[in-house]
């Protein structure tokens, strides 16, 4: 049976941009985790009851990798834990992306801390392409950040082309050097200011990031008839389907983001 269990920290280090990488020894989770799924991390201090959900960024053999931004008390405390220590963890939770039917040219569109789950998706998609196990032939990543970019080098290893845009720091944005959000970047690319090979031939898109960005992606993809899967975020009480803290409205009724999602077909989401 699935259970909350103790996992040893193998590594917990700063990688820049306010981001930490944590690797945990969790063989059972590593064995089954799929891109788009997440784990609950519990803080060792008992006064912090609630789980911190983080998207799985990699899983191999014995360990899982997560990337987290230090944004509050919990992630602050987490960043102080040393390798060798233990953390309670539950997972993998949620459904994950469907990587099978996304057509030939797949777009991965991330905003901020949405990138870890797409990094995992990129790796798995590349493996599928190499094994000719999928209709996919080409992967493009478009990654947006508020300030400093992170994980771009990692994701670009698996992608045919990778674009970066920062809202505040144009020197982070590659190759255009402009500031703005992902949509600004798409429009610039479409206006031809850079050769984005085949951006007009995207067949499917996976997207993870803040709600306003996902809503904009829904419009952009909807206009072009591109199949879009979105990975939603919510404040969670349990992360396992018991508290009804995380429901969202869909065209097929109320759904729980933590167990029915976090990945949804964008067409099913009632955007508010």
């Amino acid at each position, binding site marked *: 049976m699935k*259970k*909350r269990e103790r996992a040893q920290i193998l590594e917990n280090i700063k990688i820049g941009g306010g981001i930490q990488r944590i690797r945990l020894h969790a063989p059972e989770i590593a064995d089954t985790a799929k891109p788009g799924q997440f784990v609950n991390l519990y803080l060792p201090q008992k006064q912090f*009851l*609630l789980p911190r959900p983080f998207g799985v960024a990699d899983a191999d053999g014995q360990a899982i990798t997560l990337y987290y931004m230090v944004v509050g008390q919990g992630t602050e405390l987490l960043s102080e834990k040393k390798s060798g220590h233990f953390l309670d963890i539950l997972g993998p939770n949620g459904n994950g992306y469907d990587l099978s039917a996304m057509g030939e040219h797949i777009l991965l569109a991330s905003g901020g801390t949405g990138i870890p789950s797409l990094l995992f998706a990129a790796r798995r998609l590349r493996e599928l392409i190499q094994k000719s196990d999928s209709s996919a032939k080409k992967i493009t990543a478009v990654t947006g950040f508020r300030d400093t970019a992170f994980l771009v080098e990692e994701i670009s290893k698996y992608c045919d082309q990778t674009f970066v845009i920062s809202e505040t720091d144009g020197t982070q944005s590659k190759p255009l050097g402009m500031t703005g959000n992902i949509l600004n970047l798409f429009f610039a690319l479409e206006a031809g200011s850079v050769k984005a090979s085949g951006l007009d031939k995207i067949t499917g898109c996976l997207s993870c990031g803040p709600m306003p960005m996902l809503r904009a992606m829904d419009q952009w993809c909807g206009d072009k008839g591109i199949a879009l899967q979105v990975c939603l975020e919510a*404040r969670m009480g*349990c992360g396992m389907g018991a508290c009804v803290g*995380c*429901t969202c409205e869909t065209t097929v009724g109320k759904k729980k983001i933590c167990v029915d999602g976090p990945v949804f077909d964008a067409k099913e989401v009632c955007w508010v």
Partner: protein
Amino acid sequence: MNGIEMFGIHWKNPVTTAAGTFNAKESPKYYNPELLGAITTKGVSPIPWRGNPLPRIAETPSGMLNAVGLENPGVDAYIEQELPELKQRGMVVIANVAGHEIEEYCAVVRKLDKTDVDILELNVSCPNLKEGGLAFGVDPKAVHLVTSAAKQHTKKPIIVKLSPNVTNIVEIAKAAVAAGADGISLINTLVGMRIDLNTGKPILANGTGGLSGPAIRPIAIRMVYEVAHAVDVPIIGMGGIMTGEDAYEFLLAGATAVAVGTAALIDPAAPVRIVQELEEAVRKYGDPRK
């Protein structure tokens, strides 16, 4: 710990789930619910309720706030989809009943009366829309009215679940018992709030939410103690039970049984763990009912 008898119904042990924290599809992935004394299910209303907008959850020191707003698929869906499976597996099932006016509680009770659910639990912490939205549970007269009305629609035992957001819990408990309540459960959540320092606005979209978890346990223990000394019906005690020793403390305060809520949200297998730990506590400290 040995089983208990409540209203002539045998429980394997004195532990149940607290309403709104057990999901019939998801929770059994973490433990076998047949191992508990009873299963208390989420509040059901006569028609589906949409609940509150998100965020519905906020963390507090040793506790959490929830403003789910009793989102539920309605009593018909409950009777068709959730109840049969639990009853087929032979569990004692307590159905938690919600309403915005007395007639709504009665509508749910009438439908549940025709099922094989074992016990009904009236959640009187719901806002009474005809009385300006104040919870039924803060007014002894309203508690009396809703309890006696519900009793007219069923022969099944009725437990009234008290709200702790009152000055005198004993007065409310007595009103429920005078109206025919077969048992009392307490406590429901305490009304609380958290404000986001960046926006200056409440974190919960609803503004306020219900506080649960270990932070409320001393209040729950005190209230169970007071009510147990004032009424003669069985009591289900709850509020921040995280371990078997916490459960044992409620039995010492006078509860006949205990319910595990928030603990099961953060350690999904907590209810069965607490059954085992309670046995150890009884071995260590002796029979709490002596």
